């Protein structure tokens, strides 16, 4: 959508009426806009050309397909703003690319929640969202917004969905009863040596080692025991996967019969008819994802896009498509039966049933633990 001068003035007026702007500022900006319009020259029109596209980078696969189908395509049809898309398998990969690009080259990221939010903040990559431009944020679960606001009172991201990394297993090999009985210990079951998988990610590996050693993942006391368990899983594992597509490939082809897995990807496999079961063991790793606007992005257009994505009709369609519950508060927005049946769905809207990683605790240890995990994954 081209933001015309009229639209900009309309927004200015809205902000004034909402009390975001003083009367003096409002009049100054209006006068400046009027003067600019009066002195409009052909070359200025080109220089001030409206944004015609927004760049989005996400996780690809079924998740991004759903976002594209139910959010981006209708958004483009409505606004004429094209959403140019890129994908990544690992968020660190996109952070590296952002670091080497000019501000504005990358704009909206489907980011992995607060743990990664800290990295963008530390790297000086975040923007400041004008929440008044995203009225649909009123429907977003407050417990999902709070952790972000603790890090930056002026948000750069809006929570969009959440899920868990639970245990996926091949039901032809492992019965649901066995899975339920063993829970997270399935990843350490010698019976499945050479048929075990896992996400090649420090947080997931340490989290599941914490569950295996009976420690609180947000307050680890015995790291030696943790690394010993991580090594144990490594020695039983056939392959640590590094993208959702690879996870689905390994499970569907029977290369692995048990792995920790992203709930939505497992739901997608189940929809395709694969004999894959899923369970969230006690203390299962819960995570949230957000739409993050990077510094240098066209803010008004990005905010408009996120507002569109958070519209209940859009967010529900995307959630059903990607098989992850939306960030919409179920006490404020009526969600569908399909969403209520999704793994990890919290009907209370408090998120108390889910265990999220404490962002500050994990950020404090991230560098050392990632280094150690990288070594262990390579046989150290």
């Amino acid at each position, binding site marked *: 959508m081209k933001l015309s001068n009229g639209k900009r003035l309309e927004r200015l007026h809205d902000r004034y009426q909402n009390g975001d702007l003083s009367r003096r500022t409002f009049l100054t900006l209006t006068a400046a806009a009027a003067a600019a319009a009066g002195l409009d020259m052909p070359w200025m029109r080109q220089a001030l050309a409206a944004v015609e596209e927004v760049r989005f980078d996400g996780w690809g696969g079924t998740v991004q397909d759903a976002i594209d189908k139910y959010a981006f395509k209708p958004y483009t049809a409505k606004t004429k703003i094209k959403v140019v898309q890129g994908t990544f398998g*690992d968020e*660190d*990969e996109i*952070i*590296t690319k952002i*670091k080497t690009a000019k501000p504005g080259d990358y704009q909206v990221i489907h980011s992995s929640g607060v743990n990664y939010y800290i*990295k963008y903040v*530390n*790297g000086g990559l975040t923007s400041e969202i004008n929440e008044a431009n995203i009225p649909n944020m009123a429907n977003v679960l407050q417990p999902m917004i709070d952790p972000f606001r603790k890090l930056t009172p002026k948000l750069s991201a809006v929570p969009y969905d959440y899920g868990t990394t639970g245990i996926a297993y091949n039901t032809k090999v492992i019965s649901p009863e066995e899975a339920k009985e063993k829970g997270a210990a399935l990843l350490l079951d010698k019976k499945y040596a*050479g048929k075990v998988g896992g996400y*090649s990610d420090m947080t997931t590996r340490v989290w599941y080692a914490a569950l295996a050693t009976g420690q609180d993942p947000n307050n680890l006391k015995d790291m030696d025991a943790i690394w010993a368990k991580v090594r144990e899983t*490594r020695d039983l*594992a*056939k*392959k*640590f996967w*590094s993208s959702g597509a690879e996870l689905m*490939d390994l499970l569907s*082809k*029977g*290369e692995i019969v048990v792995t920790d897995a992203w709930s939505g990807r497992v739901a997608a496999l189940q929809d395709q008819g694969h004999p894959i079961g899923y369970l969230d063991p006690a203390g299962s790793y819960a995570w949230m994802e957000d739409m993050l606007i990077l510094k240098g992005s066209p803010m008004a257009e990005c905010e408009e896009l996120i507002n569109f994505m958070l519209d209940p009709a859009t967010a529900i369609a995307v959630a059903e498509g990607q098989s992850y519950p939306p960030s919409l508060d179920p006490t404020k927005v009526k969600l569908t039966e399909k969403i209520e049946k999704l793994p990890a769905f919290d009907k209370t809207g408090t998120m108390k049933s889910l265990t999220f990683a404490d962002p500050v605790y994990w950020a404090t240890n*991230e*560098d050392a633990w*990632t*280094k150690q995990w*990288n*070594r262990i*994954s*390579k*046989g*150290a």
Partner: protein
Amino acid sequence: MKRRWTLYDPRLAWLLVAPVLLLLIFFLVLPIAVMAAYTFFTFVTAGVETSALTTANWHEFLTDSYYAGFLLKTLRVGAITALLCGVLGYFPAYFIWGTTFKHKWLLLLLLIVPFWISFTIRTFSWINILGEQGVINVALLKMGIISEPLPMLYNEGAVILGMLHFLLPYMILNVYVSLEGIDRTLISAARSMGCTSAQAFREVTLPLSLPGLAAGLLLCFVLAAGSYVTPQLLGSGRDALFGNLIYDTIMGELNWPMGATLSIVLFLVLGSFAAIYTRFMGMSQIVKGLGG
């Protein structure tokens, strides 16, 4: 008085070579220099570094045996791959050179055909061949030869196989070009002087084709040792090579100073190897092998 331009004027030579020199400076020397400078930067936290100079990264590399072990393993895998390429690549090259087939160009075209497909897709294709539900295992299981799928994927063998697939055309083309440069009358002369076919090959063809083989070995070794996609897709974590270590340090740990240090190390090691190799093999021989 102004000097007039002559045909072999050194100024003309510099002028002609200037575009290439500039390209080399901007796209090779400068990036390497920037990387080298980065090795002395200070890592603060994931994705954040300062330009405060330190030798901590080099100190870590030189004192931590983890890195040396990886380097040796990478050189070993690179050497095995290059040698296998040499052994397996020589025969097709010899066949193409020696065949009387009218459309020899077609055979050469077949060598290049794999390059029309993305390298990543070619590597992924091995998963469908070597996997538990891959062609080989399914066939062997159906024939009753095995009762359990053979573990052929996600190990060092699969990594080397993937690299062979990728590198063999380079070796074959190098050897072929070298063979094409041999004066065939020399072989006829050897035969007329009583050599058997095998003796003529051993005494004439093989020695004269060595420059191409040597160039192919160097090329395959350097490319294999610097590889990171193949170990990532076809190997397990234990089969990672030095390139994967660099990738993880830069992309996973977001530790650019250490990643730059490891990159410079690999560059120096492979560069030194290439320099020593060409010193002993003779640069002219290598160039002859590469260029025909």
